[in-house]
């Protein structure tokens, strides 16, 4: 009984304790997240300075261990692995940007229209959202990605078309809660038009939610792009962390030497660290948008 007294008092004082305790952590997570993402952005931009090689250049002998010349060694055909990891950041950032924005545009449009107009249109759009939400997304992504041609832009397009429903739902519920508020009702009562109301009252209020949603979509897109590349279904003209992993696992003699230690580990670390950075940024924005909102608003299976 005595053991419970500490949490018990905390409970009585505040239902908000969970999020209030996160005040300091929230700032931290945003800062740390931005620092991590910034690291990858600079790596992607500074790639030509950081490494003298090109992605698929036969820079050295196959599976050379790390050295001054090749800080992360070479892969099975003699490409410099550091170069590939650094350039892989470009693919990941690009897909994060393209697919993140694409998902947001589709999701936010559906959510705004649905929540603002209401009525029959809302019902139709939400039922449509339900249908898309019930599609097996990953297999569909693979199917569409392969048959449209595996370029990075196509992958971003397909991700946007398949993964928008969570954003739409979040935006819609936010718009619904704003729509009922007095200042907006007053504004509409005084004759404010749809466009004006959206621009002046709704979009500023859902702004942070939109950003949090964008970050979540971007993170998922990075994971999916890496996954597709890992399955060998990625853009053949680009390096990607998933593809480095794929190449390594396809290399027959990977585990006969220590090659796995400099070939497998860097892309896994880069991918996980970048995703962690995005997650932290997302958590930061989500908590700023709504301190009471839970920190995982979009996870829905695969």
């Amino acid at each position, binding site marked *: 009984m005595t053991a419970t007294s500490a949490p018990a008092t905390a409970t009585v004082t505040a239902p908000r304790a969970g999020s209030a305790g996160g005040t300091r952590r929230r700032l931290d997570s945003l800062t740390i997240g931005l620092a991590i993402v910034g690291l990858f952005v600079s790596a992607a931009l500074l790639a030509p300075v950081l490494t003298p090689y090109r992605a698929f250049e036969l820079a050295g002998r196959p599976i050379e261990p790390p050295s001054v010349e090749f800080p992360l060694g070479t892969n099975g055909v003699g490409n410099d692995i550091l170069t590939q990891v650094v350039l892989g950041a470009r693919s990941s950032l690009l897909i994060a940007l393209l697919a993140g924005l694409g998902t947001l545009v589709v999701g936010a449009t559906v959510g705004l229209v649905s929540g603002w107009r209401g009525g029959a249109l809302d019902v139709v759009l939400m039922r449509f959202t339900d*249908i898309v939400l019930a599609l097996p997304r990953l297999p569909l992504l693979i199917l569409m990605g392969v048959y449209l041609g595996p370029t990075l832009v196509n992958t971003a397009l397909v991700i946007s078309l398949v993964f928008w429903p969570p954003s739409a739902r979040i935006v819609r519920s936010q718009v619904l809660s704003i729509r009922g508020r007095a200042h907006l009702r007053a504004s509409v009562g005084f004759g404010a038009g749809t466009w004006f109301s959206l621009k002046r009252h709704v979009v500023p209020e859902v702004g942070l939610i939109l950003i949090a949603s964008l970050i979540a979509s971007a993170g998922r897109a990075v994971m999916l792009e890496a996954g597709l590349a890992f399955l060998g279904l990625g853009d053949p003209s680009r390096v990607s962390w998933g593809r480095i992993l794929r190449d390594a696992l396809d290399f027959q003699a990977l585990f006969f030497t220590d090659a796995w230690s400099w070939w497998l580990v860097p892309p896994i670390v880069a991918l996980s660290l970048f995703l962690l950075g995005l997650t932290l940024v997302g958590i930061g924005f989500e908590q700023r948008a709504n301190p009471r909102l839970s920190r995982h608003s979009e996870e829905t299976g695969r």
Partner: protein
Amino acid sequence: MARQPEAAGERAAGAPLGRSSGGRVGHLTGVAALHVVTIFVLVSLVFFLPRALPGDPLNALLDPEVGGTFTAEARAELEAHYQLDRPIGEQYVGYLGRMLTLDFGWSISRQSPVSTLVAARLPWTLLLMGLALSFAGAISWIVGTTSAWRRGSKSDRGLVAAFTLARSVPDFAIATVLLVVFAVLVPVLPVAGNRTVFAQYTSIWQELGDVIAHLILPVSALTIGLLGSKFLLVRNSVIGSLGQEYMMLARAKGLPTRIQKYRHAGRNALLPFLTLLGVQFGFAVGGSIFVEEVFTYPGMGTLILDAVDTRDYPLLEALFLVLAATVLVANFAVDLIYTWLDPGVSAGTPS
């Protein structure tokens, strides 16, 4: 205020389909109708997408190493055999009819009945995902409740950090790490397939042991991948319930901590938690693609990849129907649980 945890959890899990007003029966009818439309959309997509885009199953039959083409007559004969020469509308109608009667036809790339292929693979994937979801569910339930109970403490913050990190690692990366650890560093577990090739078992127990040994790594990878989202969901929902009046009452009555923790606080998290589990089970059949690929596990995931690669229309069509059916069954189960556990749903809660 009190609704917050449910609302958050619902968003997290992707609320069940088709909330409509009307009684319980009306609600479920609406849900069923929506599922039928969903299946129809998916089945149509799977028919038209591969046919609209370049590549066809016959060319995929040719060995890419050797190259070569069919003679015009051979091609015409094959097209006639697989009925690929018919007008697209006629093919589509015939296809819908076959899907309705569950007649999946003959795989073009593998030359065997599609139903046999699917039946050989489906149980393995269901086994993988069933085990992974059960483990992930049980672990996240216990750890999440405990973490919420001690929220703000060092151990809670450590757990939140650990699970946030775990959620950032894609499951194929987790699987690759496990592969490295158990193929190179401590080679004690089998890292490929679902059983030892050419094994002669002396008893059923030996066979069972072999199958279990082959399950350990893929199931672990999937479990770790599934843990993060569930842990955070349980933790946040339970935290939401801790400030409620019934918790104070439970404490005032002097109920044992264990009962307060799991019966009172934990139960509040049950609804969104079960929803998330159900939704994830719905995506189970397609959800293990990466992990199956890493461990070359003969499940549905690797079969889907093969079918896409060889553009095997009949196989693809059957696979996606199974995918859709799993989602349907799981979502319907979630809806049943919802209407059963939460009377507010049948009264027409706005979604």
